[in-house]
């Protein structure tokens, strides 16, 4: 009984020691754990800016490459699983 209690205490000590080591290893978050303002509106603004560039900014060469890729997939549709394997 005493032995069991001692073993239990030992495990408890180890847990405490482990917690202490984890606290020491991880840097404290401090008071600035959260950003001081909402970042999502700025992200939406950037997304709008990117969307405004539109398809007209894509060079003809890239359109041709995309068209060639679609044509390749249509000519050889059995290769689509192999392409997916690499994505």
């Amino acid at each position, binding site marked *: 009984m005493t032995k069991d209690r001692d073993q239990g205490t030992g495990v408890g000590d180890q847990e405490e020691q482990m917690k202490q080591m984890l606290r020491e290893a991880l840097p404290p978050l401090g008071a600035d754990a959260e950003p001081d303002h909402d970042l999502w509106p700025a992200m939406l603004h*950037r997304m709008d800016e990117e969307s405004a560039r539109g398809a007209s900014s894509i060079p003809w060469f890239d359109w041709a490459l995309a068209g060639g890729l679609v044509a390749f997939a249509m000519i050889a549709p059995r290769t689509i*699983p192999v392409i997916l*394997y690499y994505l």
Partner: protein
Amino acid sequence: MAGILVPTLVLPLLLIAFIVLRLIMQVSFPIERGLVFPMALVPGLWGLWSMLWQWSRERTHLPLGFHGALLPLLMVPTGAFIAVLGGVLTLGATSVTWFNAVTLPYALIALFLAAGMTAYYLAWKYIVGFVNRLLGIA
């Protein structure tokens, strides 16, 4: 994060394809053996390749699309090697066979590689580049 976005978006499609083919259509071929590469290694490789671009771009001045287009040169042999080990790819005398269904003559592998490099060029230039700009890291 920008680097791993595309393969992460493809993962649900792969899972859907796996469920449809294996569980619904009862395809006998063990497709799951082929899932190790796209699900475990491809996202990591994309992330590492993106980090490599961030690290090297000031010296190489290589556009992101061209950098991404080089990745299949590394991934095609790596993926093929893992696929052979998993029994997904069979090497024949004149052709390779994927998933016991897609036979690709050796002569067409260069064309397939070109298609892969094109797909990667576009994905890296427009999707990874978009996310990089969005995150303010490019």
